[in-house]
């Protein structure tokens, strides 16, 4: 009967020591990997199967997309600084960095909107060829994720104005950050696999 092992008496908040919400976020991101993975796989499967143009090499503007990729990367830096600020209890600085992150996210989205319009003008529609189908759907879903990220950041900003974001619940900013960085990393993969590595 008496099998009480050492350590059993110490009562942790959770068994793993990770906050429930943080574990949830990691699991969600794990699930999202398969979501984007499936779309990227479909893109790669179809990238040499266009029966008509326009083709990726006719449309991609690598310098332009490099700049917007850089903007998204910098937004991740701002996100880190926002989290660091709130963890040190500096709500004011956190607000500035949250706004900066959201702003850079919006710049990225504007770049995407410009790119979509440009491609459309040059004759690429969803139904034009396999490139149109897979490119618009994949990057569109990524853009939707960035949009949701911006909404989350703005909600955090709004919450902080009401005094709801404090050093004690810096976790909320951390969770938003995990999501934001994930979406950022997905873009790095998309940029590499779809823009930079092109079929000859």
């Amino acid at each position, binding site marked *: 009967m008496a099998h009480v092992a050492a350590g*059993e008496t110490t009562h942790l908040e959770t068994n793993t020591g990770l906050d429930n919400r943080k574990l949830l976020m990691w699991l969600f991101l794990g699930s999202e990997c398969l979501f984007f993975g499936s779309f990227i796989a479909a893109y790669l499967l179809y990238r040499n199967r*266009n029966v008509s143009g326009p083709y990726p090499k006719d449309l991609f503007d690598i310098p332009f997309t490099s700049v917007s990729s850089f903007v998204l990367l910098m937004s991740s830096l701002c996100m880190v600084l926002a989290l660091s600020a709130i963890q040190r209890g500096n709500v004011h600085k956190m607000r500035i960095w949250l706004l900066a992150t959201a702003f850079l996210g919006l710049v990225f989205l504007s770049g995407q909107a410009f790119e979509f319009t440009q491609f459309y003008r040059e004759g690429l529609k969803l*139904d034009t060829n396999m490139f149109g*189908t*897979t490119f618009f759907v994949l990057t569109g879903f990524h853009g939707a994720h960035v949009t949701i990220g911006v909404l989350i950041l703005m909600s955090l900003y709004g919450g902080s104005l009401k005094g709801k974001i404090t050093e004690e619940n810096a976790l909320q900013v951390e969770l938003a950050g995990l999501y934001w960085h994930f979406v950022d990393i997905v873009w790095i993969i998309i940029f590499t696999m779809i823009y930079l590595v092109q079929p000859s």
Partner: protein
Amino acid sequence: MAATYSPKRVSMADAIKQTREAGESYQGIWSWITTVDHKRIGVMYGVTSFIFFLLGGMEALLIRVQLARPANEFLSADQYNRVFTMHGTTMVFLVVMPMSAAFFNLLVPLMIGARDVAFPRMNAFSFWVFLFGGIFMNLSFFTGGGILHGDIGAPDAGWFGYAPLTLNKFSPGNGVNYWLLGIQILGIASLAGGFNFIVTILNMRAPGMSLFRMPLFVWMTLVTSFLLIFAMPVIAVALFELMFDRLFNANFFNAAKGGTPLLWQHMFWLFGHPEVYILILPAMGIVSEVLPTFARKPLFGYPFVVFSGVAIGFMSWGVWAHHMYTTGLGSVANSAFGISTILISVPTGVKIFNWMATLWGGSISFKTPLYFSIGFIAMFTVGGLTGVTHSIVPADYQQQDTYYIVAHFHQVLFGGAIFGLFSGIYYWFPKFTGRMLSEPLGKLHFWLMFAGFNLTFQPMMILGLLGMPRRIQSYPDGYGWGFWNAMATFGAFTIALSILVFIFNVIRSVRHGEIAGDDPWDARTLEWSIPSPPPPYNFAEIPQVHALDDFWHKKYAEDEHGRPVPIPQGAAIAVSSHEGGGHGVEARNGDEGDGGHGIHLPSPSYMPIIAAAGMPIMALGLIYDYALLAVGVAVLIVGIYGWALEPATEE
């Protein structure tokens, strides 16, 4: 019968009083709509999925009536396609998955000694999304010319929805749109549930409940939940691709533009084979709880059963193409998938032998739950063996698209999953209603269902080997198929009769059943240590766990021959008193004056149902009118923000 175990309940009387006072709102329909209690959500999951089970069963009977004799014209070919599509979709997504989710909800927090799941409102959200998704899917019946004239609009492309059959060209109308959006909605419910149960199991176990002291059902829930969160996004992407093809003219599966319909099959089965184990692992977990209780022996080789379940979970990702041998993948791919499919039968076989060894030498008490569990083992073994015959590529070429396949997967999903789930219903019914189901009626139900099942599906094996293809609305006389089909139809009605017996048993027992008490089966796991039905806060005192089957060890010691000897009641109290966790009870708004940590039960909330209601509105909007889509998005956003802004527990 058993030594009663009475833990020292610090302020049980106070707890009950306070719960009653604060719990005036714990009644009425509004309390069900706003509930975040895992037990109530579990009951709602169970009842809803049973109603869908009756619906899917009626669809099955329509199919069987149509096929009862050659050249029958009971259903037109068009109606037949729609009915069998809805039968398959309903039974997979609206019956077996949610009924398993019902057991996750009812049992996991109780088995690990927690007061609720990690995210109670997300749990409610999950249920409402499932309910609305199921209703949405079935609305498709009304989109034809008129259901009363037999002109039904349900999807007609099979539950696997192979492209290009599902494209607009071959499936005009809205049936397939309802199907793909319906599964998309149901997938969100499954994902939310999967996340919730992983976090609950990993994070909320009672002190001392290490992973290898968890009941096997909890392990199987954990594996199933991981399969869910990784498999559902794959089907979500496949469904999005189909949606873009159908609604926005994209080319994912359009061969004329370079698309390949084979991509659908790969993605569907990459989801679909883990899905098979999502359907069967919970039932395996149930059986692994029922057998030790009624054999009065611990589960034989507990770690082997756990690791077999985990191994099945991993391997289920490497076998999907055995559904696709005849698509021309080439002999290397076919051989590789053939080998992996043979391999996955090894951990399954390990489990079957462990179950048999659990019964071996036990002092078996033959109660209805055990009948169903033994039925599960027998029928699932037959199903598994026929599955191994499919892994052999040349044999599969013969069996592909015949009734042999239909017989095989009903053998595992009905003979396996449904028998296992009924075993669970008979086993845990007393815990959640406080009353026993009738044993004689339960055994009648079992024998009728067992006989009916074998009369229905064994003839299909023969029909398959005789060459009868599946998914045909009619067949001519003279092939020798008529007799076996008539027998299958007779069997299907026997199953229906057995379900009527079950319904009668439930209705009668809820009112007049024998009072169960806390521990009617002399069982082994924590849920039996608390009252039946459990109070809203589950455990007055969070249990301290010292061993696998902890509750059993609190009731019994072993003599020198390893036989269980009841521990006298006084000793049990002595054991529990030195645990002294001092988790006092303070239900709802009570004070914290009893020196313990208060129980803050999560507050009821109507935000989950609002957020969930946005989903079918969005889906209808995608089909009919984008303005409606905007309304759906608005409802969803209102629900999510309301949810985020309200406090999780009353202060």
